[in-house]
């Protein structure tokens, strides 16, 4: 493994860490016509953050994180379609539900490592997908679940066509998720996760409760993924089977690695760059944008391990070296 990120002893905020939030707010005013895409990017950043927690910090390689994203999305959808279209309750229930699923599956599968674990995550999300596909009474099956209109948030902010409310709604929850993840990875708990990633045998030897730590981080991560899924459902007011597909997990992993794993902000940069590139390429060459994305991936792996933030690090190091 060639991680560069991990536990940092100094948890104080650096000024630069406020920049993403400023930019996100700026986007809201400068590019109002891009807000639907913006909300989607924000949602995927939350999802990527949750993945970073397990892949980047705890070292659990998974191709099945969409199981929790999809669980959150479907719980939010079913809740809205059957119980109430109040958004915050739906969001809370989805987050808890996905977290529970994460706990249940995590307890079982986290005893394994390597290929077996990778395959188990893959099989779990495929199983969830089959379940959603077949439980048509609840999920609508391949036709998806829609036909509900989410109520205004707190009775005040209506989800509008231009996606302004949706954007700010996602931004608020992204901020909360970021705060949580940041607190976690800068805590002793985060330090022990990094330790497990680097050498779980040694962590066991020094008496750390490795398995418990993994289960806890997996559960929290699953809950965050569920939150992201629920946000997607509420902002698009529709759920389709793709939210459970392993392709989504793969794509997310690609975004995260593209940004740089195990460093929180990789989860910001990766989805942003990937989704903007997709938006642009898909428009220019709707038929062949896959080639561009594939090419970028191969080049990143061949020449710049550590993703985009890895390049930036290297660039800064070189520049400092030259000026020193």
């Amino acid at each position, binding site marked *: 493994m060639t991680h560069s990120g991990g536990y940092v002893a100094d948890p104080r905020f650096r000024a630069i860490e406020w920049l993403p939030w400023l930019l996100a707010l700026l986007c809201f005013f400068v590019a109002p016509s891009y807000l639907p895409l913006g909300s989607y990017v924000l949602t995927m950043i939350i999802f990527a953050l949750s993945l970073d927690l397990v892949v980047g910090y705890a070292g659990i390689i998974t191709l099945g994180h969409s199981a929790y994203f999809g669980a959150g999305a479907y719980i939010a959808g079913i809740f809205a379609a059957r119980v109430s279209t109040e958004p915050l309750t739906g969001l809370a229930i989805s987050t808890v539900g996905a977290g529970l699923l994460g706990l249940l599956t995590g307890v079982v599968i986290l005893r394994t490592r390597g290929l077996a674990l990778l395959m188990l995550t893959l099989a779990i999300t495929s199983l969830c997908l089959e379940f959603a596909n077949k439980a048509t009474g609840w999920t609508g099956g391949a036709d998806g679940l829609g036909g509900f209109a989410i109520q205004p948030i707190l009775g005040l902010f209506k989800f509008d066509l231009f996606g302004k409310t949706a954007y700010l709604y996602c931004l608020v929850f992204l901020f909360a998720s970021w705060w949580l993840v940041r607190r976690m990875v800068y805590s002793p708990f985060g330090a022990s996760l990094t330790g497990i990633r680097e050498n779980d045998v040694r962590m066991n030897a020094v008496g750390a409760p490795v398995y418990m730590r993994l289960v806890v981080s997996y559960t929290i991560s699953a809950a965050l993924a569920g939150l992201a899924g629920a946000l997607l459902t509420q902002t698009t007011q529709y759920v389709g089977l793709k939210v459970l597909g392993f392709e989504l997990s793969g794509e997310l992993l690609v975004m995260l690695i593209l940004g740089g794993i195990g460093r929180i902000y990789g989860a910001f940069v990766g989805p942003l760059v990937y989704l903007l590139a997709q938006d642009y390429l898909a428009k220019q060459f709707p038929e062949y944008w896959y080639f561009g994305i594939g090419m970028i991936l*191969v080049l990143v792996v061949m020449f710049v391990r550590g993703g985009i933030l890895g390049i930036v690090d290297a660039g800064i190091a070189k520049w400092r070296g030259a000026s020193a």
Partner: protein
Amino acid sequence: MQDFLSSLVSVAFHGLAYGMILYVISVGLSVTMGLMGFANLAHGVFAMAGGYVMLTAINSQGAPFPLAVAGAFVAVALGSMVLERLLYARLYTAGELEQVLFTIGLIFMAVAVARLIYGALPQPVHLPEYMKGQLRFLGRDFPTYRVFLILFSIAIAALLWFGVERTRWGAMVRAAVDNRAMAQSVGVNTTRLFTLTFSLGSGLAALGGALGADIIAIQPTYPFEHLVYFLIVVAVGGLGTLRGPFVAALLIGVADTACKYWIPELGAFFIFAATIGILLWRPGGLYGRAAT
């Protein structure tokens, strides 16, 4: 009772045909993952390439079927050798994550290229006359082509077994799987061994893709759509063995067919549940060495 027996025969036969195709495609992946520790998600690309080579040879060059199949094997084996030297070899020492990212990138590119050259429609498969129709034995009709598939795949499995268990190359492969450093230090040229094995595995995938084109349609999204099944065969069977993927592929082929036949409502549910069960019971797969 008679009906039940005859449906049992149906399921066993079709399950066997599907399982054997899965085996031929996946066995190469199992060996390369076991030997080089490389998580090659792009394995399906080689199977797809094999299918395209064969179908192009038949449809536009008018090549006879056996020649086209052989051509698919050779072309993809050689092509993958180049790819291995140029790209894969640089990543043997990289982390699993980089390998996953790289091979997903390859899949994306292959999908786009296939679409550019062949369009989105699945390629038509024109089998020679002697492969069409049904064979009749035991009072039942069996599609000729599937009978051929089963026999041919069993022959390949036997040949592979002989190659790995009885030849010098096989001994080197087994040694390198067990302990690469030790094999290297006793004079095995592992670089060359890797290249050869990789290209053989890819060639086999191409063979499986070409022969199975009639069952698993050749179209651009092939490498994505069937990846899960290839990976399941490898993981359930266990890495670096020949027997593992064989048993796993048969298991999956028959179970999948049985589900579709008797309880189509269940879909692929059973396969994934079984995969989870087996991996929890034996994380290293059925025939893999104990998980570490």
